[in-house]
Each structure stands twice: as C-alpha cells, then as structure tokens.
C-alpha cells in the first residue's frame, strides 16, 4: 500500500479523499493555488504545497508542477478527484512515466473514453446502443450545418473532451448553430484545453441513468448499480438518487451488464461510471464513460456500503477486487443535493464572497461532504460547488422527508446558494412521485422565485436585525470606552446575560 498520496484537487472532493487516506493510514499531501491557501483541504491534509497562481491552468492543471511536487515530497500516487486533470490521459501518461501511480484508469482507456467521438465509434462497433449523430469533428461551419440538417434539429452540441455540461448547447435551428458552436467551442477550450465539438440528436426529456463500476487491474469488473441524475440545470446535475424509479429489476440487470461490457471494450481499470440516457420508451443509449470518481458517488456508498475512494486506492495499489457481483445489493434509498454558490432566483448565476456563517445539518442518515467553513471567501476562479448533502433512509419517501428536513436545517449566510431552490425541488409533487426527467427544472421551475414566507417570519427577522443593529452601535461605544466585557451582539438592551433564567 502507498505511504503518501498527493491529492491534486481542491474543495469538498479533496477533503473527501484526504479523509479516506487518513482512515487507511496513508499520509496525504494537498496542493493548492495562491487563491486557496486558506482552503479547507489545505488545513485538513498532513502536508500541503503551493502549485501556482489562482487560474487553474497555472495551478490545478499544471501537470509538470504537480508531478514535480509529488516527486520531491515522496508521494507514490496522485489522486486527481473529479474535474481538472481527472480524465486527462496526458497527465496519466506523464505520471506513469515518472513512476507515480495515477489513481484512475490507465492512459489508453482514458484516451479512448475521454475522446467522446472515438468512444462512440468503439461502442457502436461492439453493439452498444449510442445516440444517433456525428462520429467525427467537422472541418468547418458548413460541415456542421450539413451534419445538423442530416441529424435533424434540435441537435445537441457536445465537447469531444467534455464533461460536467461544459461546452454543451441545445440548438433548435440553423440560425442558432453558429453562436452555439462558437460559445460551446470557447467554453470547451477554457474547460478542457480542447475546442473539438460534435453534434448528436437531442433526445427530448430523457432520464439520465448511470452505473457505477469498479474494475481491478486483472480484468475483474463489478457494477454497483445505478444512480439517477435527471434533475439538472445547465446540463449539470443538482440532485441524484439511487435506486432509480424508472428501472425494473430486468432493465437494471440489462443496463448493468451493458455497462460492464463498455468497460471491457475500453480495457478499463479503477472506478468509472457509464452514463446512459433512458428515453420515454425505456430504451437506453450509451452516453459516455466518466473516467473518474463522480461527484455523486456518496449515494452509491450509502446504499451498497462500499467506500469507493478506498476501493480506488486499493485497486491502484494493485490489489485484487474482493467484491463479487452476486454479493452486491442495494439497500434503502439515498439522495444527494449539490450545494452550489449560485443564485437560483437569478438564472443560477455564480455568487462569490465570504461565507459569514455556516451550520451543517446532521442527524441519523445525514452525510455532509463539504469543502467550506464559516469565514471562508469563495474564490471566483473555480467551479461553484460548495458541498454535498446526502441522506439515506429505508424508503424513497422517508429519504425525501429526511432531505427536506436537512435542507431546512442547513444555514449558509453571506452568499447565495441553491439551498432554498433544492428544498422546493425535493418537495415538488412530481419529484415525490418519481417523475424525474432532464427537463424537470425547466418544465417546473422556469423563472423560479422563492415564495413569500409567513408574514410573521419577516417581522421577527426584522426584529433580529434591529437587535443586531443596537449591538453594533454598542460595539463602537465599547471600542471607544472602558468596557472590557466580552462582546456579545445580543447584549444591546442592557442586562441580558447568556444562560440567565427568565
């Protein structure tokens, strides 16, 4: 087993990996950009090293610097988390060459699945159903226009190196094609350093169902069932759950088998996720392989009892998979909500600033994977994910109730977050019925505004603001005067004391 692992990521996922290392008795080395010196992952790790200026290209995407850091500090392996270099085959190759274990698939498998176009070709050849569309990058705009007409509008623009919704655009007419392509290419370039895009048929209102898999270095592959991730905005998932309400045991078995075959075709090892679209007629299409640990991996962990990060590390260290397909089972129901620094009442625009106060929910069956703390300034340079709230319960109904209560108990002050929005998603009758498709947000929450609260709530909130106001003016007097008492903002009205009996 490794003695030290470099975690080349930031935020909640870096914290998650660092904790796994600690439990396994492995030293963790965090890397950080100049904007992240105060990041939680830096504080949590055993060691930390700065790898450059704030922009990701100069830090978290700086392969030479990261590998050099691993080498000089004696880390034998690098865990890339998700995003950044996680699915970068060039990085995996450089690690291999430097004699450092990349905790993820081998570089050839990454090459194949990371190139969405080549993956489509390979999967189609092996009889795996794919979405109709291009299997190459066009030379110029005219060719895209011809292809789009051939596929038939609406079409979907996708980044060949894509993931996380970056570079993706729905195009409904030829008029929209050029601006869509330009903007998609620019976003792909900025996110992946590769501007290649292709077009495929836009499947209307499908479900997004993916399978989690683990493959060891010896060809043994198991799937850990599905996750349904249909609740999305801007093609990015915000709520995930397992099991999916759409799968029968028979369909689950069939999709699981197909997913295993996908990894076989790609000669894949380590953890991976095979994404499918499931249309209204329960026909499924291979979408892509996410060749990394997924953001939503905790729902699988809670229902199968398998620690995916630890499995990744064991597989990378050359251990044989001890899990057997026939022994794996799903138990209960798990839901994850992604907490983003975004304003849901303003088109999900990113919000940045200081987290003035944080209180994470807890209780039975509640898990919080966070990378934040009260007093931390959210930098503008990176993805706006702050944390993930995950619940487990015996049934879907009780998991929904548990999630709603946990969101109600979650306090983040100082920046806009998706919390109030997620509460309404979880409480929506269509969600409760399991009627989830990728159009759910658009169909039910377009131009969403938070509903007015009870009138009394505003009155009491104003009263609290007024009390705080009084205490602030008292603070100024205290600063100028002789009062050495411990400051409490609530003492403004004279002789109240903490703990005093009424």
């Amino acid at each position, binding site marked *: 087993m490794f003695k030290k692992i470099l975690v080349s990521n930031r935020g909640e996922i870096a914290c998650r990996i660092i904790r796994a290392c600690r439990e396994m008795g492995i030293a963790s080395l965090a890397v950080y950009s100049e904007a992240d010196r105060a990041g939680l992952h830096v504080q949590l790790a055993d060691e930390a090293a700065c790898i450059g200026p704030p922009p990701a290209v100069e830090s978290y995407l700086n392969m030479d610097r990261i590998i050099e850091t691993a080498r000089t500090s004696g880390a034998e392996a690098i865990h890339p988390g998700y995003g950044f270099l996680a699915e970068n085959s060039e990085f995996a190759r450089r690690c291999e060459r430097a004699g450092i274990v990349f905790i993820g698939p081998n570089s050839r498998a990454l090459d194949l699945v990371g190139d969405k176009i080549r993956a489509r070709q390979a999967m189609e050849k092996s009889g795996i159903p794919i979405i109709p569309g291009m299997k190459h990058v066009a030379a110029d705009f005219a060719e895209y226009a011809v292809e789009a007409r051939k596929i038939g509008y609406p079409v979907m623009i996708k980044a060949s190196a894509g993931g996380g919704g970056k570079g993706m655009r729905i195009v409904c007419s030829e008029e929209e094609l050029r601006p869509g392509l330009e903007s998609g290419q620019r976003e792909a370039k900025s996110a992946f350093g590769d501007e290649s895009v292709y077009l495929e048929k836009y499947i209307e209102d499908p479900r997004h169902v993916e399978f989690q898999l683990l493959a060891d270095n010896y060809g043994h592959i198991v799937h850990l069932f599905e996750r349904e991730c249909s609740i999305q905005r801007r093609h990015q998932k915000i709520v995930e759950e397992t099991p999916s309400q759409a799968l029968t045991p028979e369909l689950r078995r069939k999709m699981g088998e197909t997913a295993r075959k996908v990894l076989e075709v790609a000669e894949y090892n380590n953890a991976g996720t095979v994404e499918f679209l499931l249309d209204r007629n329960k026909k499924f299409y291979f979408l892509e392989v996410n060749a990394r640990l997924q953001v939503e991996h905790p729902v699988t962990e809670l229902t199968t009892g398998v620690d995916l990060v630890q499995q990744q590390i064991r597989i990378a260290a050359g251990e044989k998979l001890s899990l057997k397909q026939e022994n794996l089972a799903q138990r209960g129901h798990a839901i994850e909500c992604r907490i983003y620094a975004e304003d849901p009442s303003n088109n999900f625009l990113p919000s940045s600033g200081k987290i003035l106060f944080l209180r994470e929910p807890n209780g039975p069956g509640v898990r919080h994977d966070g990378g934040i703390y009260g007093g931390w300034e959210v930098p503008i340079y990176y993805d706006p994910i702050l944390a993930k709230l995950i619940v487990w319960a015996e049934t879907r109904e009780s998991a929904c109730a548990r999630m709603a209560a946990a969101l109600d108990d979650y306090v983040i002050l100082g920046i806009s977050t998706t919390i109030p929005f997620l509460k309404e998603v979880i409480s929506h009758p269509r969600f409760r019925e399991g009627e989830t498709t990728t159009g759910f947000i658009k169909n039910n929450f377009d131009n969403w505004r938070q509903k007015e609260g009870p009138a009394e709530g505003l009155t*009491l909130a104003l009263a609290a603001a007024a009390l705080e106001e009084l205490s602030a003016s008292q603070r100024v007097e205290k600063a100028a005067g002789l009062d050495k008492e411990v400051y409490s903002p609530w003492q403004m009205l004279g002789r109240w004391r903490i703990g005093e009996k009424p």
Partner: protein
Amino acid sequence: MDFEFTVDGVRQTISLDRKDDRISIRHGDKTLEAEVRVISKQAVSLLVGGRSFQVIVARDKDKKYVWLNGRTYLIQRGKEEQRLAERGDDRAQKGNSVVTAPMPGKVVKVNVSENEAVRKNQTLAVVEAMKMENEIKSPLEGFVKKIYVSPGDLVDSEKPLLEIEPKA
C-alpha cells in the same frame, strides 16, 4: 426605538420596546410579543406565544443575513434609492438602461458595437465566472449607446457593461 430597513427593495419600519427579557415588536399595524434568549454571538432564540424560532444573524457592512426557521432574509440598512445613489448608480433617473455584470468575472466577448440596433434578449456580451460562460442579454429593444468594457476586463458584480437606449 425605530429602525428602517430595505428587504427585496421594499422599505420596512420596525420598532422595538424591551421589558426585561421580553420585547414588543411593532411592524406596520402588527404587534408581536417575544421572549428573547441569547444562545451565542450570532444565534438567538425567540419564543412567541410558546412557538419557538431559532434566529441566526450575520452582518456584512450594510447587509444583514437573517436566518429564521429555515429561511434566509437579506435585510439592508436604510433606503433603496439612497444605496443606489451611493454606488453612483443612476439607473433610476435616466431613460437609458445600464446593463451591469451579474457577478464578478471576466468579459470574454462583446458581441455588439456602439450605435448598433439590438433586439430584446439579444446577446450583448459574454462574461465568464467560475468556468461557466454567461450570456448577457439586452433587457429591451433599442440601440447600444455606450460600451464600458472590452474582452479580457475583470468586472465586479453590478459594474456597468453597456448602456442601451430604448427604441423611441
């Protein structure tokens, strides 16, 4: 004691009277009696007729974030117009519409030029923040009167990007 705040652009006046650990709150024509218990520096417990309210307050300059039983209120000191004026924002007075950056980020593209006619919802510029491109759309039909930024500029939230003159 009277206090004046702005919530969602609406002015709110509230007055408090204290007797020991009880406060009388007057808000418009409503009056509430609450028993107050300090929990910590930022948290306070209110009992109103036996019903329990947990309140957390965090302050950032003139903004107060008040969380109360699962809901967050953004409460600003003083009046809306006054705050706009302080920021040098003259949106209220002019017929022209100033399009501002919705969040801090980087201008990656300006799609229009000065004096160009624009349709409502036409993309005027693209601002990137947190690796996402956000298209800035025209709020109305008219002409581009002035462009304040160029590609590559870093902009703060609410910084003016362009000015649109409404179609006559």
